[in-house]
């Protein structure tokens, strides 16, 4: 798989996005990363592997501890891949659709 696909796969899962969010505030040890999630350590480990494959995290040994830190650089490619008008129209159309859905709900009441 190419790097862009790896990055998009990595950020496609809510748990992995939450891990990124957590690590964006500073490096953490594996057990600290896993703590907020109600999933098996094995599952967290798999998520970290996918993030590592995408280059979004790296592990560094500090004394006896291994610290995991976030790397933002691969997201540059994703950012460039999203065209402004792609974002613009999606935002406008979501709002338009939301307006009609809200209107329909009110009519049903």
């Amino acid at each position: 798989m190419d790097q862009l696909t790896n990055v998009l796969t990595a950020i496609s899962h809510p748990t992995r996005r939450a891990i990124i969010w957590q690590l964006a505030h500073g490096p953490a040890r594996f057990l600290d990363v896993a703590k907020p999630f109600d999933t098996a350590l094995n599952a967290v480990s798999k998520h970290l592997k996918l993030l590592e494959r995408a280059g979004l995290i790296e592990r560094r040994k500090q004394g006896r501890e291994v610290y995991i830190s976030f790397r933002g650089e691969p997201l540059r490619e994703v950012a460039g891949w999203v065209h402004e008008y792609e974002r613009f129209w999606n935002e406008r159309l979501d709002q338009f659709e939301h307006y009609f859905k809200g209107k329909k709900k009110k009519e049903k009441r």
Partner: protein
Amino acid sequence: MENSKKTLEFKFERTIPAPPGEVFDAWLNPKIPGNPWNAAEKFILDPKVDGLFYWTLKGTSHYGRFTEIERPDRIQHTWMSPKTLGQESIVTLTFKKQGEDTLMTLVHSDLPDHELARGHEKGWNYFLDIFPGQFGNGSRKEK
């Protein structure tokens, strides 16, 4: 002058819970959230064939002329902004009845595929908002 011949096209689809006529009218009504004119700080809108529109948001102006108005099926207009590099891009909307709903399709075509027209800045800001302080000297200009 360097004008890229390569163009981009984006297609979007939404199912709107209303009949095509109502959806068509709402798209051209600046009071309805979601259409381009609704977000504008200032706008001029003359939705008829050869009618013009203008709208501006955060100092960026957009211009266009309507080329097709066929209620309730189809709207087509040109679209010019700094991101189209002075060239006319084309926005085509179709409204198809789908049971009680409308399948609305928007195609934005003939967009110049040029570095300036790509959303680096906006994309970057999106990630910068999510991950503050993690991108070093990113290319953020807004705010």
